[in-house]
């Protein structure tokens, strides 16, 4: 992790400034001064024909632009550095941007030499249509040395003079605490530039358990067919094609797991259509309905539920902690029998078989979620499962809980949970559905109107997550840390970004803000698997620090003091500012509210977090590391 105060700093946008032409020449002459006069002459001549080059670094929250500067929103407080000195805990990544600058179009080579495992990524500069500016986000893995030219041909930015690289240095938990040194080099023609990299590895180890579960949500699999047309070509017609689909799905789980997150994929539509990979095949009807074939389901979920899909991960193989079940009003029981004995018979038969199958497979580490996502506006069913607004719809949830309890033995080691995503009526639902719902996923903003609710729900054994969106690329880089931090301060168990795999029609040249994407398809780069974004990496590094802070808060018994210091360093606030109060809106009946009312009521609270700076998280990190040092 970049230890900002220790960076040898250059001015913000230093790379963007035109360099004196003589300096490049000096560097070239200097690098050859011990050689013969003849060679020096050749070097002088060559240098005159070569572009001026520079290689510098930026802290991870200062995103570079393709012209050698820093993107405008991250610029205040950002400094380029001529050397990198980081302090980092073990069992974690340390990251920074490396920026290669050429004053003229030319070929170049970048290499990195470091004694710890290092991943290097080329940063893709997206043209962002909402503000017509370039932002780096998608990360394309490369190997050192990396040879290319500027402007990068495929990025198609004619004025590009700088290429940025995201550097991820992995510090295994068993690494000896010490100072590790290496360097990065840039070569173009006869010119060379190198900068030193120094990492002070502390004795602290980032806990494996996260302070907050950061979940990434998605819907179905048709988006995979859209984003991987070559890889999944023939899926519809070749029987064995689903193995490629499963491999890809597992890679999505793995990339989020590697970034300290979880991944959800909802397997049914609003009228109850279940994708073939999300449910076992059924046969029969009424009392005879049962599961006919598990094979496809097991090929999809087996490696996720036993953890083998994560072989090779630096975090080690581990079963996924949560998964949606395909249960909906049309599966496993047909809605045709709703309200009749046949509905319950079909439901209980099949869900009982599921429990038995999961138990026999020893899939007991994962929480299997019975969750109803449908909304009546999509005309499939007469009640809202998701975000209940009309109170009478809760009666359906109570019916399903009764059937679930009938299907699953009370002493089952398999963890079936009943999940509800709630916004409009959450306060009412917390009461009506006590003992029915034990996994709440609630709108982050409106949940703030009920201070203490997280603690009350958790005290009765419920799991509580909040949900929200994903910061846009044009937001300040630090924005990606706000939801995880707010979740930790509020005391909820997790936070869901409701959509993180939808890049839009043309993310490479016409990004639409990126508010629904944190990983990109690598198919266009010959890598048919998901590729991380800068925002995902920043979020991962934030979660590492939160895990350290949570460990300190739990061990030292000084949670309030630690959190007080964190929010002070983060945005100059006190803990009191992170607690909201009930707005006047709550005195009106829910059916008289609308979304504009929601926004208005939340504005004063959200305004408290509008002053983020690109250096905000580094200050929190410094504190986390200092706590561990103590």
């Amino acid at each position: 992790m970049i230890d900002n105060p220790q960076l040898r700093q250059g001015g913000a946008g230093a790379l963007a400034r035109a360099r004196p032409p003589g300096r490049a020449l000096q560097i070239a002459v200097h690098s050859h001064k011990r050689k013969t006069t003849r060679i020096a002459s050749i070097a002088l001549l060559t240098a005159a024909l070569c572009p001026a080059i520079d290689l510098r670094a930026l802290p991870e929250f200062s995103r570079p632009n393709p012209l050698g500067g820093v993107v405008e929103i991250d610029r205040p407080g950002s400094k380029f550095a001529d050397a990198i000195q980081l302090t980092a805990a073990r069992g974690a990544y340390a990251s920074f941007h490396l920026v290669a600058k050429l004053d003229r179009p030319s070929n170049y080579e970048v290499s990195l030499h470091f004694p710890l495992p290092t991943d290097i990524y080329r940063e893709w500069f997206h043209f962002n249509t909402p503000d017509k500016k370039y932002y780096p986000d998608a990360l394309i893995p490369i190997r050192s040395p990396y040879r290319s030219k500027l402007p990068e041909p495929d990025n198609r930015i004619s004025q590009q003079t700088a290429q940025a690289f995201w550097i991820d240095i992995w510090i295994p938990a068993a690494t000896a605490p010490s100072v590790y040194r290496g360097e990065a080099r840039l070569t173009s023609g006869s010119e060379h530039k190198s900068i030193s990299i120094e990492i002070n590895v502390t004795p602290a180890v980032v806990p494996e358990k996260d302070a907050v579960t950061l979940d990434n949500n998605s819907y179905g699999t048709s988006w995979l067919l859209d984003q991987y047309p070559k890889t999944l070509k023939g899926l519809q017609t070749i029987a064995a094609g689903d193995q490629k689909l499963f491999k890809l799905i597992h890679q999505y789980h793995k990339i989020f797991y590697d970034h300290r997150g979880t991944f959800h994929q909802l397997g049914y539509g609003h009228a109850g259509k279940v994708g073939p990979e999300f449910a076992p095949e059924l046969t029969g009807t009424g009392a005879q309905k049962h599961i006919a074939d598990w094979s496809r389901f097991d090929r999809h979920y087996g490696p996720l539920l036993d953890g083998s899909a994560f072989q090779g991960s630096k975090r080690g193989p581990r079963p996924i902690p949560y998964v949606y079940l395909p249960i909906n009003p049309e599966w496993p029981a047909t809605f045709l029998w709703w309200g009749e004995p046949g509905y319950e018979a079909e439901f209980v038969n099949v869900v009982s078989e599921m429990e038995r199958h999961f138990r026999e497979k020893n899939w007991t580490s994962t929480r299997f979620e019975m969750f109803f996502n449908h909304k009546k506006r999509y005309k499939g069913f007469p009640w809202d499962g998701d975000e209940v607004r009309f109170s009478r719809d809760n009666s359906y949830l109570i019916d399903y809980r009764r059937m679930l309890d009938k299907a699953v033995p009370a002493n089952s080691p398999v963890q079936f949970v009943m999940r509800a995503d709630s916004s409009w009526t959450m306060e009412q639902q917390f009461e009506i559905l006590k003992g029915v719902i034990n996994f709440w996923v609630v709108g982050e903003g409106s949940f703030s109107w009920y201070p203490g609710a997280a603690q009350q729900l958790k005290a009765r054994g419920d799991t509580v997550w909040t949900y929200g969106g994903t910061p846009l690329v044009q937001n300040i880089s630090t924005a990606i840390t706000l939801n995880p931090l707010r979740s930790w301060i509020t005391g909820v168990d997790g936070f869901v970004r409701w959509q993180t795999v939808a890049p839009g029609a043309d993310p490479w040249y016409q990004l639409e803000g990126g508010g629904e994407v944190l990983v990109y398809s690598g198919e266009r780069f010959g890598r048919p698997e998901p590729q991380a974004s800068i925002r995902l990496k920043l979020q991962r590094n934030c979660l590492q620090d939160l895990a350290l802070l949570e460990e300190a808060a739990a061990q030292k018994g000084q949670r309030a003091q630690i959190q007080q210091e964190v929010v002070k360093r983060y945005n100059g606030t006190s803990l009191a500012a992170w607690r909201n109060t009930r707005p006047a809106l709550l005195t009106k009946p829910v059916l008289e509210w609308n979304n504009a009312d929601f926004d208005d009521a939340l504005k004063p609270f959200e305004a408290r977090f509008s002053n983020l700076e690109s250096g905000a998280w580094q200050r929190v990190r410094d504190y986390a590391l200092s706590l561990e040092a103590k």
Partner: protein
Amino acid sequence: MKRVSVLFLAACPLFAVDANRMERDLDEIARVAAIMVDGDVCQRIVTARALQTIFRVDPRDQWADSDNYDVNDEAFIRTKKTLMRLSRMVDYPVDVNLWMPLAANPPRIHIVIRNRYEMSQFWPWGKLHQEMIPEMQSVLSSGQRIAVKQKPGFISVLAPVRNSLNDIVGLVEVVTRIAPDARENVK
């Protein structure tokens, strides 16, 4: 080569026969639906409150219409079960959707009940209501069933739904796809 060509030529009429058979099947379902679907019950599905808010446009709230969409459970369920039974008249995936006109000028229509295969030739996914479709207007006016094959691979037969006054109050769309997409609309 010759053998392959013969096989190919043989396959084409077979494909056509299948599509033709499907169209006949759908027409038969539509004919029965016109008798079995109760228009009075259908008229009670959407709540009066939802009908008041369905055209609501609020520049500050893009969900002002759909957040207030609501149905009467009993009427919805009764009608949906009838539609589901109708779709079981054949042994391949068929949906029977209910559509009803809305009082608006120019006329608009909305899908009121969808079913398990999530197929429709006319519904742009997520739309609460939409412009009147000429073929649907024709059914509502004439009471005649019609087959529509506008969207490639889809076959729909539209049939009127009448109430006890013999007014045509809606229509059913009996729909299938020649090559079903198992993953479409799983979202």
